[in-house]
């Protein structure tokens, strides 16, 4: 049965790392990280075979706190590093922990190409709609009309829908949940981890200090309740127009299919090349 968070934290947090963490009070990143740790615990994988890779940003600070092989790369570049690790040493379990800006703006090109390769990496994206570490600038997922320090009159750009973007770029598993639905999130991450191929789980999360505060969204509890209210399972979206879905959070498994995975295919290339 489910292992309590307390046991999970004791097992996976780095006890030689000086806490506290850098996240603001009420931030959702910890909820997503805990869901990831619970999912990892359910895989039965050892800590030594797991590599947790991140870029730069609030979410990307997560690896330092957990006791795996951990790699905190440059802004947007988690997926290229992760690709190199996985391609060079396929038995390793490679997980990317990233945010909406890191993954979909500066790292957007790497994201679609990692999806296209269908390389066996699981990417967990914390989507809190904002650049938190730099103090609240608009991100590629900030909804239209919302305020950010670089869009004080409201965002005019259309947002990315990261899970759908990944699916259309070739990811063979893509799902979305929220920090309200922490158990569902855990189960999607577990599916992603166990999926052979590129998997992406988008976790809608609250940034009360950098996003909610500027947009009158109340305290962290109210922000999480809002996720519950806006969430609509993908099974109930049939027949809905783009406009009807626009302000909702579509949760569920967006894509799940089987396809040949990159390191498996490359093992075939090596075998053929060696025989020539």
């Amino acid at each position, binding site marked *: 049965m489910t292992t309590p968070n307390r046991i999970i934290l004791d097992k996976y947090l780095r006890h030689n790392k000086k806490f506290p963490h850098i996240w603001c009070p009420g931030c959702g990143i910890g909820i997503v990280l805990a869901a990831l740790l619970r999912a990892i615990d359910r895989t039965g994988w050892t800590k030594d075979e797991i590599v947790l890779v991140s870029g730069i940003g609030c979410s990307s600070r997560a690896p330092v706190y957990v006791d795996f092989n951990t790699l905190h790369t440059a802004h947007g570049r988690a997926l290229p590093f992760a*690709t190199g690790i996985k391609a060079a040493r396929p038995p390793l379990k490679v997980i990317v922990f990233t945010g909406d800006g890191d993954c979909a703006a500066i790292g957007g090109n790497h994201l679609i190409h990692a999806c296209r390769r269908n390389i066996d990496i699981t990417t967990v994206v914390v989507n809190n709609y904002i650049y938190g570490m730099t103090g609240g600038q608009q991100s590629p997922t900030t909804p239209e009309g919302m305020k950010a320090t670089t869009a004080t009159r409201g965002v005019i750009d259309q947002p990315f829908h990261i899970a759908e973007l990944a699916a259309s770029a070739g990811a063979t598993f893509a799902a979305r949940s929220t920090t309200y639905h922490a158990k569902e999130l855990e189960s999607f991450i577990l599916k992603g981890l166990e999926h052979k191929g590129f998997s992406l789980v988008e976790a809608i999360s609250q940034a009360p200090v950098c996003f909610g505060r500027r947009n009158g969204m109340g305290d962290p509890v109210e922000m999480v309740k809002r996720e519950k209210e806006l969430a609509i399972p993908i099974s109930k979206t049939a027949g809905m127009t783009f406009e009807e879905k626009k302000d909702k959070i579509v949760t569920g498994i967006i894509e799940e299919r089987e396809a040949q995975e990159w390191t498996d295919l490359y093992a075939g290339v090596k075998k053929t090349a060696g025989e020539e």
Partner: protein
Amino acid sequence: MKKKNGQLLQGNEAVVEGALYAGCSFYAGYPITPSTEIAEVLSVKLPERGGTFIQMEDEIASIGACLGASLAGAKSMTATSGPGFSLMQELIGYGVISEIPMVLVNVMRFGPSTGLPTSPSQGDVMQARWGTHGDHPIIVLTADSVPETFEMTVKAFNFSEKYRIPVILLLDEVVGHMREKITIPAEGEVKVVDRLKPEMPPEWYAPYADTNTGVPPMAAFGDGYRHHVTGLVHDAQGFPTAKPEEVVSGMDRLFSKISRGFSEVCITEELYCDDAKTIILSYGAAARSARDAVETMRADGEKVGLIKLKTLWPFPKAALEKYEKSVENIIVAEMNRGQIYREVWRVARGRWQVGKALAPYGNMLTPDMILDVARKVTK
């Protein structure tokens, strides 16, 4: 590998042979003239030897994948040219501060921007030294022929493994594309260095601790030595720190591990320097013309010598300084607007007259162009 006599290879192919000889098992790259042959040949040869080739979406991803592969234990390499080299700059710094070995080949072309993609130039010398942001040490090697390209590629891997630092191999378009006879040494004939691995129990492992060489042993991800790697300034454990004493010791070690190896890393070759009053200093393709010019002047009875740089950075100033008393003039022969000339002028501090023979238009520096300058000086 069997010893093969008299192969006719391109400089870019010699990079491939050198990389494989040194144990390269991972290549990630993006096509760009005039380096593309390196990727093409490795895409064939690496999987034959159990290695991995991957074509990435751009040069940023290419160097990122190489750094990741190196962290997973593979000797890795990428190759590019000017525009791609510009894109790679950020992660060169990542490799330096996180102490990740890898080799980056830049087959230089004329720039800036798209420039003259198939014309020779040595315009990236200062970018190789200072292209990534912040103070940092770097090792930059070069070569003037196909056999020397092989030799310096092996050395690039050896230095990167020994000192845990990305090493840049700066080649000229004409060396990359030129075909020459080369005999690949037999296995074991040339020294190959592998990174030091930790032998202590994992709980004692500190991935960034000081050692008697300044270079800490490096565990690969998956070896049981779980640790943290970051581009933030970090303590001996690899965890981010801003404590002044930890910043000082960490950053100083980053530089001192290289400066302790200067005598090994700074490679030069000399010709007729013992009695020379004038030295022509050159490197890469330009050094071939410089050698020709020196031979011509020697035949005329002029006391002229040649110093050829095979290492550009750290700048091998000791090779010049030993001629402090005997030499009067140094002429720098290079294919740019004087990037190494300025460094020589800085090192000279008035001890020698420093002149220059330059080819800054995507053209090859010819012996005659060097002779024109040198004869005025020796007159």
